[in-house]
């Protein structure tokens, strides 16, 4: 290992990735100011309410990114069980008085200064845990009891806790993350297949139990059929994209954020971006995202150490999966689920975690083989 490090050390962060992340953060700040100003003025009498908070998050996130970049990775790996424990405790605390409800679901912990979303913590801890697990037990992972059960149980616990919130989208995200990590980590395909079939059946049952949920889930196929109710968000989102055309209506000129589009500065911020900056602006985001996919591929595949490789892949997936799912939701390709757009959407937890992942990838990029 030491030999590999010596020959391949670059010792400088991946600038492609760093700049992409910083541009996305800047774009996010701009769009948050644009989307939330009117709403913030009405409800908080301060146009810059969300902007100011997001600016603090970006600064904090940059600090986190730098800290993670500087910290030896072994420190994270050693503390993997602590991470898992912290995530489980956080997920459990949601049901304590510290839990904070919004929109009929308790997904937040009120820590006084900021609210954190335990889901975000769970993502990171799961990636680190799974990376270490698959790296350390390569010979054993094909055995069911060792290679499959422990991570499945932990992931299952996360999912159950998330479903209790209820946060269906979060549970699905964790499950997909687990599935992808296992796929790369080398668990037998048959286990993965059967577990995903099992997960599918559970999801289907959950959906069928509540007709509203079912209707909401499948309204994306034809949102205009019920544009005033279950298809509302998506229709408004598509209106926004459509109104943007190629060049956009101009920054601040968007109209969908005038309360037509719920969560305009949050989950649906890309719709407003599409409206105000047009296809050109959306393409910029896609290009930056493409760069991130490319760099994640380069960084993770160039890692000699399996734990590094898996964690690099996992951290990258948190960002990429989050981005693509968010874009798919706002563009009406998957059922609408509350998933923020990494780096761009308003929200401390999501941004800090995304920055953590970026920091981790930058950390890895110092030791990639060129």
């Amino acid at each position, binding site marked *: 290992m030491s030999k590999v490090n010596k020959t391949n050390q670059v010792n400088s962060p991946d600038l492609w990735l760093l700049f992409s992340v910083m541009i996305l953060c800047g774009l996010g700040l701009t769009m948050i100011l644009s989307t939330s100003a009117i709403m913030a003025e009405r409800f908080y009498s301060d146009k810059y309410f969300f902007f100011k908070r997001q600016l603090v998050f970006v600064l904090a996130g940059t600090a986190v990114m730098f800290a993670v970049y500087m910290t030896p990775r072994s420190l994270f790996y050693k503390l993997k069980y602590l991470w898992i424990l912290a995530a489980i405790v956080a997920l459990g605390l949601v049901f304590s008085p510290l839990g904070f409800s919004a929109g009929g679901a308790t997904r937040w912990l009120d820590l006084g200064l900021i609210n954190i979303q335990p889901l975000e913590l769970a993502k990171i801890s799961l990636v680190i845990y799974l990376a270490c697990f698959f790296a350390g037990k390569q010979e054993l992972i094909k055995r069911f009891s060792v290679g499959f059960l422990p991570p499945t149980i932990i992931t299952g616990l996360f999912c159950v806790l998330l479903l209790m919130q209820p946060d269906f989208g979060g549970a699905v995200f964790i499950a997909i993350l687990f599935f992808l990590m296992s796929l790369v980590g080398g668990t037998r395909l048959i286990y993965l297949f059967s577990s995903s079939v099992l997960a599918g059946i559970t999801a289907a049952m959950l959906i069928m139990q509540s007709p509203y949920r079912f209707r909401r889930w499948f309204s994306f196929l034809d949102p205009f059929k019920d544009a005033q109710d279950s298809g509302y968000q998506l229709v408004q989102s598509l209106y926004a994209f*459509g109104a943007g055309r190629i060049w956009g209506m101009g920054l601040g000129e968007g109209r969908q954020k005038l309360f037509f589009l719920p969560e305009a500065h949050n989950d649906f911020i890309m719709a407003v971006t599409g409206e105000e900056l047009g296809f050109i602006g959306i393409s910029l985001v896609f290009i930056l995202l493409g760069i991130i996919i490319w760099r994640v*591929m380069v960084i993770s595949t160039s890692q000699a150490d399996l734990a590094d490789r898996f964690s690099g892949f996992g951290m990258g997936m948190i960002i990429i999966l989050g981005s*693509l799912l968010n874009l798919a939701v706002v563009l009406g390709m998957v059922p609408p689920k509350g998933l923020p757009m990494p780096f761009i959407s308003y929200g401390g937890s999501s941004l800090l975690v995304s920055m953590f992942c970026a920091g981790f990838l930058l950390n890895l990029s110092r030791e990639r083989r060129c």
Partner: protein
Amino acid sequence: MAKVIPKSKVKDRTRIKIILILGLFAIAWMGLWCRALFVQVIQGEELAAMADRQYYSREKITGKRGEIFDRNNVVLAQSVRSKSVYANPFLIENNHSAAIDLAAVLEDDPNRMKTLLNQKRNFVWITRKVSDRTAHRLAELNIPGVFIIDEHSRVYPRGHMLGQVLGFVGIDNQGLEGLERSLNEELAGAEMIIVLQRDASGHKMSLLPQDPTRKMDGQDVVLTIDSEIQFAAERYLASAVTSHNGVSGISLVVHVPSGEILAWASYPFFDPNNFQRSHSSIWRNRAAVDLIEPGSTLKPFLMAAALEEGIAKSDSLYFCENGRWRLGRNEIKDVKGHGWLTLNRVLRYSSNICSAKIGLDLGQDQYFQYLDRLGFTTGTNLPIPGQGRGILRPPHAWSKMDLAAISFGQGMASTTLQLARAYLTLANEGRFTELKLIRDDSRQSPAGQSVFSREVSRQVLSMLRDSVEMDGTGTMARISGVEVGGKTGTAQKASPRGGYGDKYVASFVGFIPALEPEYMIMAIIDEPSPQHYGGVVAAPVFAGIGNSIISSGRGLKLRNIPGQVIETAQTDRSTENARFNVNHRRDRVPPGNEMPDLRGESLREAVENLLRAGIVPVLEGRGVMVRDQVPAPGESFSENGGKVILRLSES
């Protein structure tokens, strides 16, 4: 070593897996990018159009309809603010309970409400022009999606006074009848479509730029009517029609030198406040629309024409055949047989036989020419819709009998207005004079051509005086203290089956004073019975109205000082208005650059007021009432750097 090989193999396999998975994600990434291209560029136009529909709410703001005043600035037709209720069904959460609540307050059918609220539109009228109390109760219910807006409704504070002349307006303030219809262009407030950008909660966010210089309110109209005289005219007309069992009646008072109509009454009365309750036959303006045979009231023009042409003199003798005269196959009768009569007595006793003889002497072409110049072939230029032009056949189509009949006012028809105008011409020294109803100097018609000479018209006026003041048919028209003149008319009505039936039109046209007339008063009563003589039925109306004009202290001054009346009228307007205002005026934008006090007003009202002054306000907070404003009331608009802020609250 053997341990390392499989490990690196595993590593390589994971690398390929990572590349494969990220490759799949790259495909998804590409797919989403294409989706964005599709949504934004290919479907963009369609989606943008759909989105537009929800952003803008177009609202029609109509300026206040102009008001109608009489010559002394008494309000005859007025616009008052009233509340109307509309709903945006999309914003109503619970149609069922909203419908029940609405129905309870409006005392309406819940099912009707439900049908209204179930419409897939974003604007439905729930009810128009409700009382302030009802509006207040609705506002208290605070049903989301139900809104109350201000409209103007038309009020006629003097009830039925001048009803048929004023006409009325429909629910959207469009003039439907009378002056309201013919002057709609002047009266109607300008319509301005203001486009408001909305947010999803239905709040109006910003106002798109528009032309702030446009004047929104309609023009006021001042009539020549004097409501005191109008009141007298209506009163005496009503009593004459009812006491003589008539069907309907018309009375008209005209200021002779100017041709200004001072009173114009039609009975049965019609209250434009409530036009739906009356039949259209009642709101018809008979004086302008209905054609009547003038009968004996046409005779003075025959006399004047004969005198003018030198065919007769006032002492020319005519033989009246003792009441019966056969002309060809027809027989002409007089009410009372006379022998030889001088011309002035022919008029005084209203002999048909002698009139026919004079007419035959005059000849049809000459006679027609005079009738034509007197206006019997043209309508008046009063702004009254549906005016008749009379029926007067061209002279070459007249038989001898036709000429005879037209000489005493039968076999032709005119409107009451045409007849009044002809009398006006006679009274104005033979100069053709148009009637006027609107006090507007720009409408001043040029001095008309002279139809009769001064001497002739004076001669005829003195004949008319004699028929009242001496022993003529109009003795019941006498007014003590003033010498008056006039002509009675008792026309048989042509029956629908042809010929003449036993129904009559009794009329009287008279002048005060007789020789230099200041007022012309006309009264026509349709189908009086059993008494049907104009001198009995209509002449007392003249006397009654004339008496009240003279005793009012207003009379006999107009001739000399018409200009001065206008002056005082302008200054009096505000005080007169205040008396009759149902609702005090809320023109909160004072002239100049001062901020009005908008606090406590509804958002809509405040915005409208500011828009009229050309100011687009910035709205802060949510709600429908103005809580506070910057700049403060009385300060200049530009105080805050030209930015006018309205802070809103819910109530």
